[in-house]
């Protein structure tokens, strides 16, 4: 590979790309990865820890997060109750650890659902001209309603459950993804290789699945991480103001909502879930920033 090729008239051609890039053995190593993508590594590590906490919550010295113990209510953090107890005597440590499950479920479900639906709407909008005008008007309108208010309005009309929270936040997020995908599709349609595919008689479904969709993946993945972070924040916010996950389920927003009345005297009930929520959202945001820099070199080191 590294031998310089000679053209017929004796001129040297440019060397192959492999010679310019760093040696292969240096790549793929963990240290190298951390050095090249510090934000992905940091965000990924933090998120893995939270994920492990959520999965192994029952094994991490927790008790039943819904078990009431009225005699032991509002105890300060101690050796027995690491994060203290709330006004019904429930163990805040156990509730916060189990709460990670709700946040992650909501975050991941909304990110997946919104990406898939947004992709569908975006591709339809980018390919079907007459539909495009209608879809874009609807999206313009939906994006004019601040996301949280849209979710509040939806939640007021349905019985609260984790599913309805996921649906409400997804509805608020889909327009953003749709618009992103539509933009990418429209610019890809003008690419010479797509024109060539059309000219050579490739059928539309094949163009969409083989030539368009794979190229929308990078921006969608980046967008999905940010949607995941924003969905976690929205869920916590909705629960905090009483329009989210039902109060019987320990989610970080619910724990904070319950601690609200007492926060001036027992601030720990609010602060422990707050710390976990902030760290989790920070982890996902770092991951998103890193992925954007890695997948879109044009934006790297800029935004």
């Amino acid at each position, binding site marked *: 590979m590294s031998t310089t090729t000679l053209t017929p008239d004796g001129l040297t051609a440019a060397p192959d790309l492999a010679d310019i890039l760093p040696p292969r053995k240096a790549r793929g190593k963990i240290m190298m990865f951390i050095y090249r993508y510090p934000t992905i590594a940091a965000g990924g590590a933090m998120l893995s820890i939270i994920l492990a906490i959520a999965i192994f919550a029952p094994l991490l010295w927790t008790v039943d997060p819904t078990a009431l113990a009225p005699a032991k209510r509002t105890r300060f953090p101690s050796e027995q109750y690491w994060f203290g107890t709330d006004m019904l005597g429930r163990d805040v440590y156990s509730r916060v650890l189990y709460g990670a499950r709700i946040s992650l479920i909501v975050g991941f479900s909304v990110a997946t659902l919104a990406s898939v639906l947004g992709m569908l709407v975006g591709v339809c909008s980018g390919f079907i001209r007459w539909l495009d005008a209608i879809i874009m*008007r609807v999206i313009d*309108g939906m994006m004019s309603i601040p996301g949280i208010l849209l979710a*509040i309005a939806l939640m007021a009309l*349905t019985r609260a459950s984790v599913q309805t929270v996921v649906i409400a936040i997804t509805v608020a997020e889909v327009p953003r993804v749709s618009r992103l995908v539509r933009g990418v599709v429209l610019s890809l349609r003008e690419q010479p290789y797509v024109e060539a595919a059309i000219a050579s008689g490739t059928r539309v479904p094949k163009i969409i699945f083989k030539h368009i969709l794979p190229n929308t993946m990078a921006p969608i993945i980046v967008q999905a991480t940010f949607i995941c972070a924003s969905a976690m924040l929205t869920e916590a916010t909705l629960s905090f*103001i009483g329009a989210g996950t039902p109060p019987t389920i320990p989610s970080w927003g619910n724990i904070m909502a319950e601690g609200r009345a007492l926060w001036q005297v027992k601030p720990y009930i*609010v602060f422990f879930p*707050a710390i976990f929520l902030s760290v989790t959202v920070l982890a996902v945001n770092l991951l998103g920033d890193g992925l954007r820099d890695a997948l879109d070199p044009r934006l790297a080191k800029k935004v």
Partner: protein
Amino acid sequence: MFAYILRRIMATIPVMAVVALFVFSLLYIAPGDPAAIIAGDQATPADVERIRASLGLDRPFLIRFGDWLWHVLNGDLGTSIFTNLPVTHMIAQRVQPTFSLMVLTLTIALSLAIPMGVLAAWKHGTWIDRVVMIFAVLGFSLPVFVVGYLLAYTFALQLDMFPVQGYTPFEDGFGKWLGNLVLPAVALAGVYMALIARITRATMLEVLNQDYVRTARAKGVGQRAILFVHALKNAAVPIVTIVGIGFASLIGGAVVTESVFAIPGLGRLVVDAILRRDYPVIQGVVLMFSFVYVIVNLLVDLLYTVFDPRIRY
């Protein structure tokens, strides 16, 4: 120019129409029977029927929508199920605290975030740049209510510098009004500042590489003049765009901030309405905030011509 303004104003009409249609049809597309859910678990069948009739769910969709739209256009947002007061009346009572909070937040965010972004772009790659970027990531990640509680705990409870909660009307004295609003405004400004600082830095980096900046530097223009006159003016269009788009997060954040600091504004109105399942109030506030959001972005569009004379219509 006048024709352009007129055209832009006309263009917001279909957007508002879609918003109205969407907010209205939520009642119909929600799974289950909204009348039963709004009535609550202890409601009798008669209660459910009463609510169904008051929401107009017993009449055909299009007739009901036309009727509702006509009332909205005449400034009637319906009547609250809980208090039986007109929704417009309830909104009008709550406008001042929310408006004050938003104005103060905007002032804080713009006056801090833009210099931060400019500084980060100027000192690109140094520790100053890094600090601003870390601040931006934190601003995106810390929920408004977490920042709110932290500020209230530190500056109100421990240091006793500001009142913990509440709101004093503007008429009762500027100092008191400001003292009550400083902490909520700073808490609310976080996300917005992160957004603006980021975009300012990114656009400034691009602009500072332009030939005219090099020319200005070559002819001896001072650093401050280059940054704030030559560069910032050319970076203004993306910045005002994000100020307009980010306004949505300001509205969403205000709802929560008002809960944390017990400010009797529109956010509290919505939160109370949720707990009482007072749908007409929720509908009215959502519609009004969306209207404000559309107007803000309309103003942003019109500002483009001020910042960039090349944009002519």
